[in-house]
C-alpha cells in the first residue's frame, strides 16, 4: 500500500511538472530576464547585454513622455474603475427589483465584454470622431446635436484636455456590465430576511442599502476593484485601436509606450525598464490580494 502511495505521488508530480516548469520559466524566468535587459545597454536592434546599472531608469524618469503616460494611467484608472463600479452597481440594483425581461437587459448590458478591445476601439474611434468645422459634426457629437444637446459636444480624443477621458468612456462601456453581473450575483446571495428585518426596524430603502447591503457586498467590491484595477493598469489594445498616443501624448499609457519603445524604436533596455515599472505598479495591487487569499485558504 505504501509503495502505491509513493508511486502515485511521484506520478502526480510528473503530471504537473512540465506545465509548472514551463509556466515558472515563462513567468519568473522571463521577468528576471527582462529585469536584466532593463539594466543593460541594449538600445538598438542587436542584443547587447553590457551592464549599465540604473541608466535606463534614470533616462526614463527624465523623459517627459514617460511621466505623461504615468499621469494618464492614474487618470484613466480612477475614471475607468470608479465609473465601472458605480455604473455596474447602479445597474445591478435596478435589475434586482424584480424586473420583467431581466434576462434581456442582463444580456444587453454584458455583451460588450465578449468583444476584443480592438473591436471596441475601432467602433468608439468612429463614435467619438468629432468631425471638423468644415464637414460638420459626426458620431456622438452629431447625435448630441440632433437631440438638442449640442453644448455637450467635445473634441474627444482629438482634444488634449479630454484625450484619455475619451478612452475611459469606451472602457467603461465595455466593462461596466461585468461589474453589474458580479454585484447582481452578490445581491441575490443576500437573504431577503435581512432586508425585511431592517425594514421592520424602520429603515428606509436608502438606509438598507447603506447599512445592510453595501457592507455585505464588500467582498464583491473588493474583487471588482482588483479585476478592473489590473486590467486598467495594463490597458494597451484599446489605446492602440482607438487613439494611439493622441495629441501631445494625451492618450498615451505606459504599456503602449513600452511596446513602441521596444519594438518600433528598438530601445530594448528602455522598454524593459518601462515593463519592470509597470510590473511593479501592478504588483502593488495584486501581491497583497494574492497573499490575502493564500492566508484565507490556509486557515480553512
Amino acid at each position, binding site marked *: 500500500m505504501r509503495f502505491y502511495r509513493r508511486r502515485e505521488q511521484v506520478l502526480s508530480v510528473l503530471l504537473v511538472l512540465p506545465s509548472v516548469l514551463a*509556466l515558472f520559466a*515563462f513567468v519568473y524566468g522571463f521577468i528576471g530576464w527582462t529585469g536584466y535587459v532593463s539594466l543593460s545597454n541594449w538600445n538598438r536592434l542587436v542584443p547587447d547585454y553590457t551592464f549599465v546599472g540604473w541608466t535606463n531608469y534614470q533616462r526614463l524618469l527624465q523623459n517627459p513622455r514617460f511621466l505623461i503616460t504615468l499621469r494618464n494611467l492614474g487618470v484613466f484608472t480612477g475614471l475607468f474603475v470608479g465609473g465601472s463600479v458605480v455604473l455596474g452597481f447602479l445597474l445591478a440594483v435596478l435589475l434586482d427589483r424584480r424586473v420583467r425581461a431581466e434576462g434581456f437587459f442582463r444580456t444587453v448590458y454584458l455583451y*460588450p465584454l465578449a468583444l476584443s478591445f480592438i473591436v471596441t476601439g475601432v467602433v468608439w474611434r468612429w463614435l467619438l470622431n468629432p468631425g471638423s468645422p468644415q464637414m460638420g459634426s459626426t458620431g456622438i457629437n452629431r447625435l448630441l446635436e440632433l437631440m438638442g444637446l449640442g453644448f455637450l459636444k467635445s473634441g474627444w480624443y482629438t482634444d488634449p484636455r479630454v484625450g484619455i477621458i475619451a478612452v475611459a468612456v469606451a472602457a467603461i462601456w465595455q466593462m461596466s456590465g461585468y461589474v453589474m453581473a458580479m454585484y447582481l450575483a452578490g445581491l441575490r446571495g443576500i437573504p431577503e430576511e435581512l432586508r425585511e428585518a431592517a425594514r421592520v426596524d424602520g429603515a428606509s430603502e436608502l438606509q438598507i442599502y447603506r447599512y445592510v447591503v453595501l457592507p455585505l457586498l464588500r467582498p464583491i467590491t473588493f474583487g471588482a476593484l482588483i479585476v478592473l484595477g489590473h486590467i486598467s493598469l*495594463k490597458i494597451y489594445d484599446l489605446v492602440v485601436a482607438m487613439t494611439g498616443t493622441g495629441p501631445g501624448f494625451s492618450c498615451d499609457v505606459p504599456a503602449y509606450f513600452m511596446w513602441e519603445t521596444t519594438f518600433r524604436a528598438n530601445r530594448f533596455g528602455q522598454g524593459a525598464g518601462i515593463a519592470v515599472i509597470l510590473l511593479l505598479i501592478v504588483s502593488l495591487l495584486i501581491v497583497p490580494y*494574492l*497573499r490575502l487569499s493564500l492566508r484565507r485558504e490556509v486557515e480553512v
Partner: protein
Amino acid sequence: MRAGRLLLYLVLLAFAVYYLLPVYVLLVTSFKSFAEVNLYRMWSPPRSLSLESFRRALFGGMGYHGLAPNLKNSFLMVLPATLLSAFLGSLNGYVFARWRFRGANTLFTLALFGMFIPYQSVLIPLVQTMRALGLYGTIPGLILTHVIYGIPITTLIFRNYYATVPKELVEAARIDGAGLLGVYRRIMLPLSLPGFAVVLIWQFTSIWNDFLFAVTLAQNPAVQPITVALNNLAGSYIVEWNVQMAGALLAALPTLLVYIFLGRYFMRGLLAGSLKG
C-alpha cells in the same frame, strides 16, 4: 408605485440604448454601400442593404487586403490552443485539488501571479525564446504562448471545480482498485464536462480577442490573427468606414455568438476568473 415602475423601465431601457448604440452604428454602417456612407447620415439606417462592405472586408479592395485569411489564422490558432490548455488545466487542477503537501498552496499562488502580470514584462524574452525555438512569427508559436500563459486560469477553474467532487465517489473508485489516473479518467473526467465548457469558452474568448501576443509574435501579415489585421485595416486611411465596420463585425462575431448561445457558461467563467474560491 406604478409611476415608479414605469420610471424604472425607462431608465433600464435608456441604459440598454447606451450599450446597443455602437452595435447599431456597426450594423447600419456596414450594410451601407460606399456611396451611401456619409458622415452626416451616420445615424440613419441604410436605404438598401448592401453586402459590398462585407465582401471588401473579407476579400480586400483597392490597395488593401481582406480579412478572410486572418479569420482562418485565428481559428487555426484558437482551436488547438483552447483544447490544449483546457486539457492541461484539467490535469493540473486535478492534481492541485488533491495535493496536501506543505507549500502546495504557496506554489499554486505563485502560479496564479502569472495570470495578473502585464505581459509587457515578458515580451522581450518571449520574442528571443521563440526565435531560438524557430517559432517566432508562426501560428504554433502563438499556440504555445497562449497555452502556457493560460495555465494559471485554467488550473484555477478546474481546481475549484474538482474540489467540489464528493470524497465518497473518489474513495469508492479507489476501493475498486482505481489508481491516480483511473480516478481521473473514470470519475473526474466524466464529471467535469461543465467545467470543460466554462474553460473552453473562457479560453476561446480570451485567445480570440488577444492582441498583444499576436502583434508582437506575428509581424508577418500571412500569419496574423484577426485582431491584428483588423487594427491594421482600421488604421489605414484608404479604407472606407463601412469596410472598417464590416471588418469589426466579422472579428466580433465568433465570440459574440459564443456569448449569445452559451452565455450561462460564459458567466460562470467570468465569476470564477474574478473571485478566487
